[in-house]
């Protein structure tokens, strides 16, 4: 039962990824796609399939899985089903750091920018963690999210100001800042994509400890979990996943909220089962949203944030309605 659910999910992800190669402004037959992948002859169609569709599909898969896992990890640590890198301001922190480094210090090395993004993400996560810790449980999940959204608004405004002041870098930055899976720098994908996959896999062994944490801090300690260390470790992992996702695709919201929610609907609260499902659902949603951006307003292309918000906002509403959210963790 458990295995078969996972199998179907993996199959769905694969099918969506395949569909993503065929669908768009130009529709291709499976034969055309197969030929383009196996015997490319440099025609325009080949370039579209191998040069545009394959990279954007990979970006959607990797970033989707990464952000979804990041959301799941944050939700576990904060014990808050609304926690995710977008709503908590972590994406905004990473973007802000990258803009500062790129526009003001002229940093363009990928390693340096990735580290900056990581720094920004970690800083925001640490601030949120400090806020939660300082209230010792008095902060309800709803209030925590409000604080995160406000932090995101603040960092977003700062970023906006910086981008306007620094005219020269504006064009490239604006495109990246809008967030999306299409036309991303493939060099960044090849460098950071494997890292994200690795981090997603590395998160899995924490499943038992996170299950223990879900039962409460005291119980978790009694079960031999070093709660503080676990939280730091998991939050570091979550920040890194969000930060690298931001470096590849710009800030993308709601995936980290929706994917873990759907995974829980599917399989319950067991983290060992949640991890692979969340990652696969995140990857599927990423690809699905990317396909939607190409089809919904064709011949134009809709922003991925809009597509994800159309799904994410209603799910956010469903989650807010949960009675338990105002009673505190």
């Amino acid at each position, binding site marked *: 039962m458990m295995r078969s659910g996972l199998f179907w999910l993996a199959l769905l992800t694969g099918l969506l990824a395949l569909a993503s190669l065929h669908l768009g402004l130009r529709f291709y037959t499976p034969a055309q796609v197969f030929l383009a992948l196996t015997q490319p002859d440099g025609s325009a169609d080949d370039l579209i399939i191998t040069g545009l569709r394959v990279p954007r599909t990979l970006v959607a898969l990797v970033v989707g899985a990464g952000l979804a896992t990041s959301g799941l990890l944050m939700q576990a640590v904060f014990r808050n089903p609304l926690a995710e890198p977008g709503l908590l301001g972590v994406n905004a922190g990473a973007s802000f750091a990258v803009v500062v480094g790129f526009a003001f210090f002229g940093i363009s090395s990928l390693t340096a920018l990735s580290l900056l993004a990581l720094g920004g993400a970690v800083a925001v996560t640490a601030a949120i963690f400090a806020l939660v810790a300082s209230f010792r449980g008095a902060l309800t999940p709803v209030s925590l999210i409000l604080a995160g959204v406000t932090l995101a608004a603040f960092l977003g405004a700062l970023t*906006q100001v910086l981008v306007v002041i620094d005219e020269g870098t504006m064009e490239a930055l604006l495109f990246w800042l809008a967030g999306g899976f299409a036309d991303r720098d493939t060099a960044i994908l090849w460098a950071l994509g494997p890292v994200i996959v690795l981090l997603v896999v590395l998160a899995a062994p924490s499943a038992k400890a996170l299950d223990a944490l879900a039962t409460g801090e005291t119980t978790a300690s009694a079960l031999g979990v070093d709660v503080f260390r676990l939280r730091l470790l998991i939050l570091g992992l979550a920040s890194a996943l969000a930060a690298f996702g931001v470096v590849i695709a710009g800030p993308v919201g709601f995936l980290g909220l929706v994917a873990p929610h759907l995974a829980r609907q599917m399989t319950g609260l067991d983290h060992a089962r949640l991890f692979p499902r969340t990652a696969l659902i995140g990857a599927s949603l990423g690809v699905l949203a990317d396909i939607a951006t190409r089809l919904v307003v064709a011949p134009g292309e809709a922003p991925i944030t809009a597509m994800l918000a159309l799904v994410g906002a209603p799910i956010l509403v469903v989650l807010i309605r949960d009675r338990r959210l105002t009673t505190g963790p």
Partner: protein
Amino acid sequence: MTRQPGMIAPPLILGLLTVMAIGIGSSWIGPPRVLAALFGAGAEMDQVIIWTLRLPRVCLAILAGAALALAGLLLQRVVRNPIASPSVLGIVDGAAVGVVLFLWIWSDEANALTVSIHWLPLAATLGAGCFALLVLVLAGRDVVQPARLILYGIAMAALAKALVMVLIILGPVYRASTALIWLAGSVHAAHWDDVVILGVVLAVVLVALVLLRLRMDQILLDDVSAGATGLSVAASKGLLLSFAVVLTAGAVSFAGGIAFVGLIAPNIARALVGLRAGALLWATPFVGAALVLGADNLARIVAFPLELPTGAITALIGAPYFLFLLVRQVRHG
């Protein structure tokens, strides 16, 4: 009452900021020349620049700030919590949906509007009203929990933003650029027409509110006590909420959503003049107008000759203030 410095300071500060705002531009015009031109004297060139180029923009900023501030005041009264504001209840983005739909439906092939631009605020009001209703319906009995209510607002705002983006892309290029101008929350494409429409909306609502000021004081009590003072609580809330929607929509249709003004201004005004609705109805619009104008002045000076988005400046002040309010409320249970 009128002797209180809190009552006099906001209009004075607004006056100073106005003279300064008129002076700022591609050429600086000093206060004496500004005042002279305003009263119909001084160089003809100054008069032309000031009356046709700079004054409409300044007036629009003032009116938009006043309208957003008043809307915030009303919402904070209805919710009985100082963290409420139009931008977080989804009304601002709802109004944007109304505006984009309006531009979408009533444009001809040549991208010219087929109906008068005077109908724009109505479309914005309808959009804002729909989203306000949606938030309230979704919230149901959560209305009494401001934090949760705001989160519903944030969810609906995200939905509205997505709709706006999709609608803009589906529309032709011209419409996209008109729409994007005010989405950025700026006031630099102002005309006297816009000023007059927004001014009339604001004046009408303000007069109505002054007549209703007793209700605004009663509503501060809890529902039962307010009812005992002879107030029909539900009707009053609905009325104040509708005014808030109209004011927000008016501001959004001509100046874009200027973030956080509706949150900060009523709080500053309350610190200045206290809780009485009469005094607040006087002070809040001035504070809101001064905030927007001050932010707009800053936006034009800081990176001169570049111009920052006014909404970004107000967000930089407003976001920390919101966090402060939130943390304070959590501390005090």
